[in-house]
């Protein structure tokens, strides 16, 4: 199994990371690109030349024409507007997945790390969950709940949880051997207090790094789910379902895959680069491990 990152001391690395000048030029470009994408998607309602849902089936699959800088899709909807707006839901799905899986993983990992009795059972369940290929699990979950935004988030979140749990548990296991934790236990400090005051801070740094990776991979997974026919409705565009719909027309209108694909890839690329930079900053020992 993959090497478990050792814990680091409390909050300092997080604070250190906030001093941005330490980032290299690569990360700065990444931050800039990401900022541009985020701002564009946030302002999409105002920037987009068209309503992304207004269709005109009689003017479908047109190349770039006046008023449609990237052309129109198979319903005659404006591709440019759809890609802009599509970023919103893609990012929301990514962020929600990252936050939810980190929070749930944190709680379960804490319990597993701190309570020996629960540990074995929880970890066996996590092993089982991890053994199921995440894409298959996600498609099955979407089939279970219907392809709403909520169920897509749940379907991507659930397979991510075991990885977070393992991480948190390892940090907690190591931390509870530390003298200050043992001292706190000996002094009769209440369990919640120990967890929140001493253990949670230790997990912050690795969790932030893990969170960015989950964010990136969730956006990617959403696209793959859409591609396999288990994504959200075409009435709520995401980068993923724009591409999924466009795949039928790839040879006559590759733009339908290329533009959302470009937006999505740039976005994930910058998130990944920033994640790497954050990891280097937060935990120099991790840097040696994963480059």
């Amino acid at each position, binding site marked *: 199994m993959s090497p478990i990152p050792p814990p680091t001391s409390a909050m300092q690395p997080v604070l250190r990371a906030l001093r941005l000048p330490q980032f290299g030029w690569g990360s700065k470009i990444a931050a800039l690109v990401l900022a541009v994408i985020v701002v564009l998607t946030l302002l999409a309602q105002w920037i987009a030349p068209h309503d992304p*849902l207004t*269709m*005109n*089936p*009689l003017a*479908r*699959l047109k190349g770039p024409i006046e008023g449609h800088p990237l052309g129109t899709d*198979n*319903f*005659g909807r404006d591709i440019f507007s759809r890609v802009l707006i599509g970023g919103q839901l893609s990012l929301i799905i990514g962020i929600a997945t990252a936050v939810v899986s980190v929070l749930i993983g944190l709680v379960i990992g804490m319990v597993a790390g701190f309570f020996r009795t629960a540990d074995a059972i929880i970890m066996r369940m996590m092993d089982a969950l991890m053994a199921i290929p995440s894409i298959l699990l996600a498609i099955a979950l979407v*089939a279970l709940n*219907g*392809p709403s935004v909520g169920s897509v988030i749940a379907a991507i979140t659930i397979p991510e949880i075991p990885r977070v749990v393992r991480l948190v548990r390892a940090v907690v296991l190591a931390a509870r051997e530390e003298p200050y934790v043992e001292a706190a236990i000996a002094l009769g400090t209440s369990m919640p207090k120990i967890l929140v005051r001493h253990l949670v801070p230790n997990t912050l740094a690795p969790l932030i790094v893990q969170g960015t990776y989950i964010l990136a991979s969730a956006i990617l997974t959403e696209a793959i789910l859409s591609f396999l*026919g*288990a*994504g*959200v*409705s*075409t*009435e709520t565009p995401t980068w993923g379902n724009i591409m999924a719909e466009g*795949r*039928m*027309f*790839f*040879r*006559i209108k590759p733009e339908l895959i290329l533009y959302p694909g470009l937006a999505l890839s740039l976005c994930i690329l910058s998130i990944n680069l920033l994640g790497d930079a954050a990891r280097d900053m937060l935990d120099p020992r991790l840097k040696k491990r994963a480059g």
Partner: protein
Amino acid sequence: MFNRLTATLLASTMLAGTAWAETTVKAVMHSGLRVLDPVITTAHITRNHAYMIYDVLIAQDSQFQPQPQMADWAVSDDQLTYTFTLRDGLTFHDGTPVTAADAVASLKRWGQKDAGGQVIMDRTASLEATDDKTITWTLTEPFVPMLDMLSKQSALPPFIMPARVAETSADEAITDYTGSGPFRFVEEEFQPGLTVVYEKFDEYVPRDEPADWMAGGKVVNVDRVEWVNMPDIQTAVNALSGGEIDYIEQMQVDLLPLLEGDPNIVVEKREPTGMQTMVRMNFLHPPFDNQQIRQAALKAIQQEPVLAAMVGNPEYYQVCGAIMGCGTPLGSEVGTETLTQGGGVEEAKALLEEAGYDGTPVVLMAPTDMVALATQPVVVSQALREAGFTVDLQPMDWQTLVTRRASQAAPAEGGWNIFITNWMVPEISNPISNPMLNGRGDDAWFGWPTDEKVEELKENFIDATDAEAQKAVAEEIQAHAIDNGLLIPLGQYTLPQARRAGITDMINSPVPVFWNLQKAE
């Protein structure tokens, strides 16, 4: 001795004609074959499979007329007794001869499942094999469409199986795939959903008449037919261009430009009638339990945008308001001007207001994994919204849709308000077999309208004695069905087929068949 010599000579001349190599036709059909029992399902791909390996007593020709296939028939003067006589030389793939008992067992199993078959069975006094070759079918009252029902090519034709197979319960899938058709099913090479292999059945004796749709001689000129399923049509197009396959049953019209200019490929409309796409509403729940609101939905929709988004090129779709199909004997477009020409939105708004529509969300089920059904819901939902409906477009896979449409629960509790489906025009061209025109409440097709008027009109249709009278009743049915919103026709379309130029003499029947065709190497 002499016989053996002629046989050898004959064989060698025949072989010289076709060369030594085996001819294999590789075809991409509209979907993967998974269910092998043509009685248990109405899936078109299973029916197509059945036409390969089974034969039928009587069959439809290109004029929609019944013709002899396995059997000739005679009708008694009182129109109550039909006698079918099997022709000589009929053999099952296991070598046993086809007998009247086999046919009777097959017809009885079919009669439990098929809508038309059920109507006949309700009027059947007796159906029995009077000798090895003769089937005698006696009715309790005359039933004019009898031969039409027995010869129809969709959705569920009465295929003839060995009696031992036909004795399987009609709710259980058969496991023995012995037929007497022109091709033999190669079970060892069957990969469900992926590949199906058929070999020419050498002992099949075709009729002497030339092939005409499903009637006439089924002469097989190739040794092997392989159906391969491909996950998307683009892949299939690439494979056709590269000569890896010979035939695509249904092309997506948008991709036709990819094949243009290739002299090795022919794109054509296979059959004249095509498919109908249509909306079905649920009569049990608000808002569509109200006739005015159903009418509002009908007025809100215009066919052309739906068809354009679905098909693209206008050459391959046809605006058509006839619930029984344009270009069929009974097709009539009465009452559908707004559907075909537009301009009904204001009327729809007025109707909604008059009916006191309160904004109840309309649950519209939208399948995402069926190309031929994915676009209509999106366009329809936009049209309904423009007229003032609140629409809840729910994407789902086709399997969830077919499960959920069977639910009579309220839309908020797992039920539904609207879905869209497609039919082959021959399936809906007759009021008896058109499932939309069943007004028997819980026994009706999904949507469950209780509509005594349509049932009454259908009785009139059955009693109508000549084509003229039938047509008059059919027009009344059309007017009533549109007024009551039994369905909203969205128009007709044809997905063209594409073939390598070396494949010739294909029959242009609604069901694609592989006899008669030739393959040049």
